[in-house]
Every structure is written in C-alpha cells, then in structure tokens.
C-alpha cells in the first residue's frame, strides 16, 4: 500500500462530486403514466361527445314532431301499406295454394293516396300558378 496523506485526503473528500443528470432510462417508465392520462382524457371526451349527440338525437326529432303535428297532411291509404318482409312472404307461401298465388298475394298494390279536404295537392297548386 502506498504511503497515504490522510489529512489531505480527508480534505479532498470534503469536496463532493456534483450529481449527474437523471438517468434517461427512467424516462420511459414515466411515459405510460402520461399516455394513460391522455387515454383517460380522450375516453372522457368521447363519452361526453356521445352523450351530447344522444341527447340531441332524442330531443330534436321529438321537438319537430310536436311542432309539425297540426300541419302535416294526413295521407289516406298510407296506413294500409304493408312492406314486403320475410314473415309476410312465409305467411303468404304457407297460406297460398301455389307459388303463383303467393306471389299474387304479395304483389304490391299502390295505395290510393288522396289529399284531405281543404288541403290542396302540390300539382294543383303548380297548375294554378301557370
């Protein structure tokens, strides 16, 4: 062992080396936390947007329906119109004697739509203007 100058060594040891910068490997460990926060924020925003959209969708049509109730022309024959569905087709096939008869029964019959009394048709209004 070399002959050491203890008091001088002690004096030198009183100087403490400065701390290094934080190790970069620590950074990725913190990144997922930030990403999680961002994810939560995005989810919260998406939920809020969905809720607002749902409220608007529910309220606006209801509002329009109540507003236009008295003015909408009542169409006769519209109630009689039945759309062609699988159920209806099955029922027709089961009830009819043949496929032709079933097809005949399913044939869409144009409903007679007439305008209510006092309400003029668009065609009549246009022909009057001309």
């Amino acid at each position, binding site marked *: *062992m*070399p*002959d*050491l*100058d*203890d*008091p*001088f*060594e*002690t*004096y*030198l*040891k*009183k*100087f*403490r*080396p*400065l*701390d*290094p*910068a934080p*190790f*970069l*490997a*620590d950074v990725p460990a913190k990144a997922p936390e930030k990403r999680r926060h961002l994810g939560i924020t995005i989810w919260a925003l998406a939920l809020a947007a969905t809720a607002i959209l749902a409220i608007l969708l529910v309220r606006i049509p209801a509002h329009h329906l109540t507003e236009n109730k008295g003015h909408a022309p009542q169409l006769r024959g519209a109630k009689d119109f039945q759309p062609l569905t699988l159920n209806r087709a099955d029922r027709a096939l089961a009830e009819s004697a043949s496929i032709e008869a079933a097809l005949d029964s399913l044939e869409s019959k144009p409903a007679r739509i007439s305008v209510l009394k006092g309400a003029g048709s668009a065609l009549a209004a246009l022909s009057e203007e001309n």
Partner: protein
Amino acid sequence: MVLTTPAARAEIEALYRQHGPALLLFATAIAGERSRAQDMVHQVFLKLIEDGSLQQVSNKKAYVFTCVRNALANESRRRQRTVSLDPDAAWFTAPDQNLAAETNLRRALGSLPREQSQIVVLHVWAELTFSEIGEVLGISPNTAGSRYRYALAKLRDALGGSVDTTQVAKKENSCARSR
C-alpha cells in the same frame, strides 16, 4: 438483443444512483468537458441495460468505471481531437460553499497528467482500491499506488497555501476523540 430483466435493470439503476457522481467526475477528468462526460456515462448505462451485460461481472463497480473509460477513449478516437479542460464548469460541491476552493481544486486536478488525475478521482471520490484502479486503467496495483502518491504530492503543491492540512488533521483528531 438481450432483454434485461427488471431485477437486472434495477441493479444497474442502483449502480448509477450510487456511483453516478464519481463516474461523472471520472469521465469529466478524462474528457475535460462535463456535458460530453455526462453523455458518455448515460450511453454506458443505456448500453448496460440494453445488453444486460452486468450479470456475469464480479466487480460491478470497477466494471462500470472501465466501461466509461473505454467509451470515452473510443469516442476520442472517433473525434480525432483533444479537448481542453473547461475552466468554468464546476465539478464539485465545495465545503462551506467555498467556490474559490472548488476552482482551485479543479484547476489543480486539471494540471495533473491525465492518468494521475484519473487515479486521484478513482481513489478519493470513487473509493476504488489500487487493485481495482489497476483493473480499470489496465495497470498494476503498484503502479496505481505510486502514481497516486505522486499525484497527491503535486496536488498539494498546486493547491499551495490554500489548504492547511494540519488544521484538517486537528479537526479530524478532535472529532475522533469526541466520538
């Protein structure tokens, strides 16, 4: 690429926390530039984490000092230039916030031949034995010891009257007696 286990990574990070200041000082003594020294120390530790190469090492402390020294040597070869010591950047926290003493010590260390300043840093602040210093620098423990002795004498001369070691010794003795 070897995946470092969480335990091995934690061990490497603990090494950084424990020896980071001394490693940075050692790297600064070699590079003469604190920012470059900091980069090198970080690079060494990132590589250790990436390779997981610390698991088979018996003396981890000496090994990381060797890694830093080798990394700086390789980098210097690539740069093909010598770097003069940065006279302004502090290396130490001085006792009693004595900035003049810090500057004096830094200049005195900078005035030593590089292999001697490295030995002083490794022995005084990194607390490596001469055997470990020999391992890090690729010299025999006896050579490390004699270089240290020369370096310390030069350092005392360079610091001149700014250090009163007898006062330090008296303080130490009084502390020892009170204990």
